[in-house]
């Protein structure tokens, strides 16, 4: 990479808060502050604040950007009501996933958030759509306030936050600043993502962190939280070869699109919905204490290869190792015993239903 590492509007604040910084997708980001275990528990029990300004924020204007974007993703967007957000994926012609994203109906335009690592692919895809004017929002920070106390921290400063339900979004005023607040996240907990003009990002973040129930958390805890919540990480659990059906994301394809198609790779995705995929992304609970990380082979108890771990580590709330991976569909039923080949040794594990920790959304 020839570009200099990019810094978010909160970079200096991270250093002041004692963050350990790492390069991630071309950005200098906090991996941890107090420690991953403490930050993870903070999010499950109270609230944690994450800087996710590295993610790509764009607006799509035009006569019908929802119809145009539907040609790239399998979600129904023309029926997405104003003020609602939907999770979907860019698919390729082979039915694999090019990235995952959140699309919000912001009234006269769509507001889209994509992964930092895939921004350079995703933005040209959307910019090339007929009748769509794409604008990248480069002057806004994006923070995620996540945890059961998120509402009680945010609502006193911004009452409308209490009225939002899961996957709802609105513009609002926070400390005299126009922001976009969306009730969603990547931790399995209730919470918000807030898009903030960069010149007010530090002030608003400091104000939220000043609350007794709020503490900063880094990418390390973000990963352990999303893994326990059974949420896919692009590049690990989903990629250009895995289909949304294999990845257990069929719920994100609304009925009209399942029958109507009209998105890249529809043939494979529709046939997998009808006939079932050859492999499935499953939860895997190792029986011992050894974490099973990305790339570990999954075998049947008789030694046949079934697939690989795509995300794995220690689940602080679970109190033990947790993992996700693909296995051949006949072996994907929860309760199935498998072996994980960790450093050459077969370690017993069980296929389990996802998530590992119940999701705690405000429906």
């Amino acid at each position, binding site marked *: 990479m020839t570009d200099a590492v990019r810094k978010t509007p909160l970079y200096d604040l991270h250093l002041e808060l004692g963050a350990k910084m790492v390069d991630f997708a071309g950005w200098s980001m906090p991996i941890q502050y107090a420690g*991953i275990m403490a930050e993870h528990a903070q999010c499950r029990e109270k609230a944690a604040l994450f800087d996710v300004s590295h993610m790509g924020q764009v607006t799509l204007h035009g006569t019908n950007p929802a119809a145009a974007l539907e040609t790239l993703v399998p979600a129904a967007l023309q029926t997405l009501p104003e003020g609602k957000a939907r999770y979907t994926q860019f698919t390729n012609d082979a039915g694999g996933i090019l990235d995952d994203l959140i699309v919000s109906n912001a009234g006269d335009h769509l507001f889209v958030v994509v992964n930092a690592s895939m921004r350079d692919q995703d933005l040209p895809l959307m910019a090339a759509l007929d009748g769509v004017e794409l604008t990248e929002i480069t002057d806004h920070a994006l923070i995620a306030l996540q945890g059961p106390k998120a509402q009680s921290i945010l609502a006193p400063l911004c009452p409308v936050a209490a009225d939002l339900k899961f996957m709802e979004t609105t513009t609002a005023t926070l400390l005299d600043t126009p922001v976009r607040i969306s009730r969603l996240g990547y931790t399995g907990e209730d919470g918000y993502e807030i898009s903030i003009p960069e010149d007010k990002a530090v002030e608003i973040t400091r104000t939220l962190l000043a609350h007794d129930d709020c503490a900063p958390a880094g990418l390390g805890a973000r990963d*352990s939280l999303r893994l326990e919540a059974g949420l896919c990480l692009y590049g690990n659990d989903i990629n250009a070869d895995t289909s949304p059906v294999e990845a257990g994301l069929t719920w994100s394809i609304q009925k009209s699109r399942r029958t109507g198609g009209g998105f890249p790779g529809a043939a494979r995705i529709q046939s997998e919905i009808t006939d079932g995929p050859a492999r499935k992304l499953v939860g895997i609970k190792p029986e011992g204490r050894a974490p099973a990380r990305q790339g570990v082979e999954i075998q049947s108890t008789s030694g046949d290869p079934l697939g690989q771990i795509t995300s794995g580590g*220690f689940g*602080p709330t679970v109190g033990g*190792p947790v993992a996700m991976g693909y296995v051949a569909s006949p072996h994907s039923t929860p309760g199935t015993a498998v072996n994980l080949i960790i*450093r050459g040794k077969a370690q017993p594990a069980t296929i389990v239903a996802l998530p590992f920790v119940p999701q705690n959304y405000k429906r």
Partner: protein
Amino acid sequence: MTTYYSEEHEWLTVEGDVATIGITQHAADQLGDIVFIELKDEGDDFSQGDDIGVIESVKAASEVYAPVDGEVVEANETLADNPGSLNDQPEGDAWIYKVKLSNPSQLEELMDLAAYKDFIG
């Protein structure tokens, strides 16, 4: 009783021909929250540079490399149930091995505390 330090961030306290080996506080801080350790068994032989254990933090797995040649006299059994003690007392109760040195002259290649402090900056 003399304590030596390796570039792999291990400490060795030597009494006679037996060394107690652990990881330094600096190493523990760099690893972050430690959640798992896998150790060799009593009686296992190893050579300098061999992989003699695995320490896993929430983030990643890291190998423990043998700073000297030797044989495991005792592995600290308490670590399996309490891997977090490696974060709290890596230079105390959370020692990893007691080993019988088979080539004590290798100790001369290691650092003393002052040199190790320079090494980690």
